[in-house]
Structures are given as C-alpha cells and as structure tokens.
C-alpha cells in the first residue's frame, strides 16, 4: 500500500493509504477527543467532537471519517476547535436529561469525562427537557432514553459484531431515538440475542445492567475488542 506523508500539529508523519486521520493521530500519540468512535466498529462521524482543521479546507472535518491524503496539514487543537467542541458538548447535554448525580454511570461516563476534560462548567443553551421513557422490559438490561446521546454505538455493535440488527435509529431531529425491532419494548424483541454487547458499548448510562444503581455501572470494552480480533484475525487474545 502506498504511503502518505502529512503533518499533524506540526509533526511530520508517514501513514498508510486508507487510514483515517484519527488512527494516524493516535499512533503518533496525539489525542483527539471522541464520543461516537469505538475501537473495532466502523465510524459514522455522528458526534462531531473529533473535528479537526485541515489547511486549505474551509470547513472542519471529522478525524474519524476523514482519510489521510498526501501533503495534508492538520491541526487538532486551536481556539476555534475548542470553541466548537464545547458547543457540541453543551448541545448534547441540553438535548436530553443528563443528571449525573443519579446516573448509573456516574464516574464511569464518557460524556461526563469529556465535559471535565474540555472544561465545560455550564451549558449556555436552553435545556429541552424532553419526556423520554425508560425501557426495563428486558430481563437483563435496561435502556434510559433520557441519557442517550445518539452516538449509535449500540446500533453498530449489534449490526457489525453481533450481526443481529436489533437496534436502529427511528425518526429524525429531536424525535430521533434508538429503537428495538419495530419500536417495540426491548423485552418483546424477537431478534435480540441478549448478548449485552450494546450495553458494553454505551458511552453514557443510557444502557445498563438491571440492578445497578448510581455510579455502579462499569463497562468492559475489552470484551468487544477481543471479539473483533477473534472474528477478523482469528486471534483469541485472552488477557491473563
């Protein structure tokens, strides 16, 4: 494969053709904030937190969905990017009902961690306070739509790793939400295998193990990576 040379934050880097800006940056030790990206599943560029500046391109591009090109000059950190990332994050908070103190993922939440690391101390936008329900019809897991950020990780693990396609997104705009089969209670789903991969993938407290209370919900992302490596490379890397 042809090699591409580019610079990220002034650092000159050689990358394989077809690699994404995010992959290349990570290999070079440059951290770009992400929320919808999950190792092992394909990217969709949904959360817009990984936006980067590319010299010569007027708009910002999502690092996870942008392929490297010869001579690219990329900036991953600037006043403009910090401004947009905070704005995006604040809008995510304003869109649903994120109440950390009572959330199962308090302390282990990627949205919360991101807000801390980007220095988000308040939200400048009006909260929508939508009325979303909690689906606890499933035997093992629950889904609280109030905490969902629509990153579609659960949709993608169900589709790409488990292969069942139980979850998807319904509607558009503020009406968008995650559905199970034909928008039915999760417990009545025919296609769901109850594998729990969606629960492992969720960045917030939207998907949780039943019975977990505030701050108790921890996830094991390693399980997903283990499965992807096993399926795609036929290597069963069991950490001892």
């Amino acid at each position, binding site marked *: 494969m042809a090699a591409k040379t580019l610079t990220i934050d002034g650092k000159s880097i050689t990358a394989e053709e077809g690699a994404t800006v995010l992959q290349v940056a990570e290999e070079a030790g440059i951290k770009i904030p992400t929320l919808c990206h999950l190792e092992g599943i394909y990217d969709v560029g949904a959360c817009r937190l990984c936006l980067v500046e590319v010299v010569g391109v007027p708009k910002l591009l999502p690092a996870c969905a942008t392929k490297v090109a010869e001579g690219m000059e990329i900036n991953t950190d600037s006043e403009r990017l910090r401004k947009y990332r905070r704005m995006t994050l604040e809008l995510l908070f304003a869109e649903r009902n994120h109440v950390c103190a009572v959330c199962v993922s308090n302390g282990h939440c990627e949205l919360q961690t991101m807000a801390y690391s980007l220095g988000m101390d308040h939200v400048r936008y009006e909260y929508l306070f939508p009325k979303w329900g909690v689906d606890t019809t499933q035997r093992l897991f629950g889904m609280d739509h109030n905490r969902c950020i629509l990153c579609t990780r659960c949709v993608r693990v169900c589709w790409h790793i488990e292969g*069942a*396609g*139980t*979850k*998807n*997104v*319904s*509607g*558009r705009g503020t009406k968008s939400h995650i*559905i*199970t*089969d*034909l*928008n039915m209670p999760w417990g009545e789903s025919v*296609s769901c295998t109850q594998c729990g991969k969606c629960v492992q993938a969720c960045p917030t407290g939207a998907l949780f193990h039943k019975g977990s209370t505030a701050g108790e919900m921890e996830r094991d992302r390693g399980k997903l990576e283990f499965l992807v490596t096993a399926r795609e490379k036929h290597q069963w890397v069991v950490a001892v």
Partner: protein
Amino acid sequence: MALEHASGDKRFKILEVHMKKHQFRHDALIEILHKAQELFGYLEDDLLLFVSYKLKLPPSRVYGVATFYHFFTLKPKGEHTCVVCMGTACYVKGADKVIGAVQEHLKIKAGETTADNNVSLLTARCIGACGIAPAVVYDGSVTPRQSPESALEHINKWVAK
C-alpha cells in the same frame, strides 16, 4: 412458491410481485415502501414486518427508514389531504400564516388527522414549485399562491360535504 400473507389480502401479493421485480434487493427498500404506502395508504406494523421478512432485513432497519422520511406515514390518512409546502420560498411568501390558519380552523396540528378522519394536514420541505409560492397540495393537486383565506375556502368544501 410465493408465501401468501395470512390475511389473504391480495395487495400483499401485488407488493411481493413488486419486490420480485427488484430481486428482493436490500437497497430497494425505499421503493418497496413507496409501493406499500401506495397500496395500503399507510404503513402499519404488520406491513412493515412483511416487508422486513420478505427483503430479509432486520425490522429495526425497515422501521428506521420508514420513520426517517417525511413521505412515509405510519398512521392512516384522512379522506382528504392538505399538504402545505414549508420550503424557503413558500415560507417567506407566507406559508406559516396559511398553515397557522388551517391548524386553528381544523383544531389539529401539522401531521395530524381530524377526529372524524376527514382531513389530514401535512407539511412538505419544498415541493419544487417555488415559482407559484406559497403552494398547497389539495388531494394531490398543486394549487398556486395560497392565502389563509383561499386555503380555508378550499378546506371548507371538504368539511361541508
């Protein structure tokens, strides 16, 4: 051998012939949903399940697509439909006033149907008739340069009957 739908409704058979024309391809989902809505008027759960089963697609995908596009409706439509174009040109020419007047008159919101199942009020995002803005589609016929008064006049013809 084609499986017949349990209800024996012939329209399922017509729909299946249509799917066959598309070789049951996954990417023909939108065309199939178009046909299904044309045949049945709206997409109820049973119909979506039939499509998902025949195309061998997860029900969640079919439901997701059906709810994403404005054109598809999952609830039965009324006897008459009134589609107010809310595209940019129509909007600046007063489509908001037209829809406001109709909403107030029929006591329903856009996307809803009157309780007697007579009139469905819908909106569209530019129907490509910007030259005659604001345009309203009454029962499938595009009508130019509407005002709140002319719209109510048109709707009252349906209500009177």
